[in-house]
């Protein structure tokens, strides 16, 4: 069943459940089961493996770093790796590293699951939850800005390289400094754009009337119910098996 065709409310519910379970469950096996379930849903739901890999690849280095830090600094459990009488990795550290890595992967995978379909459907789903129209619109606008922010970050990195930064051969410290430098233009640019956009919207009568109607309506179909209930059923099984 194509994920893009599933009702946005179902996907928002699944996102909330997956994120909550990922943050509350502590066993690596339980988190691995959640990840496998989400990946199966993505792959059978029409999300291209290349897209999954591209999105995941971006945070692999962060996952690796967090895994390493947890392994090195969490001292619980039995020693697993001892060098020269010094305990480097313990069982607790390894488990903590796996938990952090798996949690991040679940967050990315569940975000990919939720981002299938049209953004205007999420706007309607948030309205269905009785959130104010302005808040819903802001969420939608923020989602639209993500690709733009990514393009800006890529351009800034390219501009730095063209002005003498050899990113490929830079040390971790140099890279970290450059990435921090990039935060300034991206943050300022985002704030300036938000300000310009709000002025432009106000100038075109945004908020001139309370509320807003929509021709498009969300309708739960039989497939939506089946998909949602089936997914929740599997989540409940995982919860009780690993409780």
């Amino acid at each position, binding site marked *: 069943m194509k994920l893009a065709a599933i009702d946005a409310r179902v996907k928002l519910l699944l996102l909330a459940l997956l994120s909550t379970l990922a943050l509350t469950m502590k066993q690596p096996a339980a988190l691995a089961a959640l990840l496998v379930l989400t990946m199966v849903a993505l792959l059978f739901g029409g999300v291209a493996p290349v897209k999954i890999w591209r999105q995941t690849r971006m945070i692999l280095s962060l996952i690796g770093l967090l895994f390493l830090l947890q392994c090195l600094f969490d001292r619980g459990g039995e020693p697993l790796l001892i060098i020269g009488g010094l305990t480097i990795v313990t069982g607790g550290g390894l488990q903590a590293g796996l938990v952090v890595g798996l949690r991040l992967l679940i967050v990315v995978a569940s975000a990919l699951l939720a981002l299938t379909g049209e953004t205007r459907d999420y706007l309607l789903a948030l309205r269905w939850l009785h959130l104010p129209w302005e808040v819903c619109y802001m969420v939608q606008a923020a989602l639209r800005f993500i690709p733009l922010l990514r393009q800006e970050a890529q351009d800034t990195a390219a501009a730095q390289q*063209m*002005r*003498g930064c050899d990113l490929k051969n830079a040390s971790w410290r140099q890279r970290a400094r450059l990435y921090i430098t990039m935060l300034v*233009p991206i943050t300022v640019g985002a704030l300036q754009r938000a300000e310009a956009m709000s002025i432009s919207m106000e100038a075109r009568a945004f908020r001139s009337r309370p509320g807003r109607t929509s021709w498009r309506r969300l309708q739960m179909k039989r497939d939506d119910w089946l998909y949602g209930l089936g997914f929740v059923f599997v989540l409940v099984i995982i919860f009780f098996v690993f409780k």
Partner: protein
Amino acid sequence: MIEVDKLNFTYPGVPRPVLAGISVCFQAGGITALIGPNGCGKTTLSKLLVGLLRPDSGTIRIDGEDIAGLSLFQIGSRIGYLWQNPNRQLFAPTVEQEIGFGLANRGVTAEEIAADTEYWLDFFHLSHKKGALPLRLSLGEKQRLALGAVLALRPPYLVLDEPTGGLDRRCRRELGQLLRRLAEEQGCGILVVSHEKEFIRQYADREVELL
């Protein structure tokens, strides 16, 4: 010389190619203007020339070397590139550091960086703004700063996408005269993407039109 041979490029998800079978040479020691209507692929071609985009097929050579095997860092040491939107290339916390960024990366001494920065700030009338955040400048000031940051590195080739955007008449004249000096005295090869006929007529040696 920058040689472009049978270049083809299509943006992902767009059915028609933006550039199809483009072959052209840009000589060192002269100013070439790249002209054409909106959406004809001028900016795309300029981005391909500096490796910001990769062609579907065809080759681009700088002084005989194919840029397909070069990193942005390596291309940047030969070509200075001015983005169409100056916001995309300003990232330093101050105007002064923006000009000095590339020089510091090239290992230039602090004294030389200070002298060069002062020269370019003065040239582009930005001395009074040297401590300001670049992204808080006006459009014209940003454009001048972006130009200063590129020109300070004195690359053998320059690709400038709409360099006169946001500049007043005096700044346009000074920029045109500077580009002519760079081309004639230092043998710099300059490609200017522009719609401004007056500027092109006055300073360009050659026009290449994309249709």
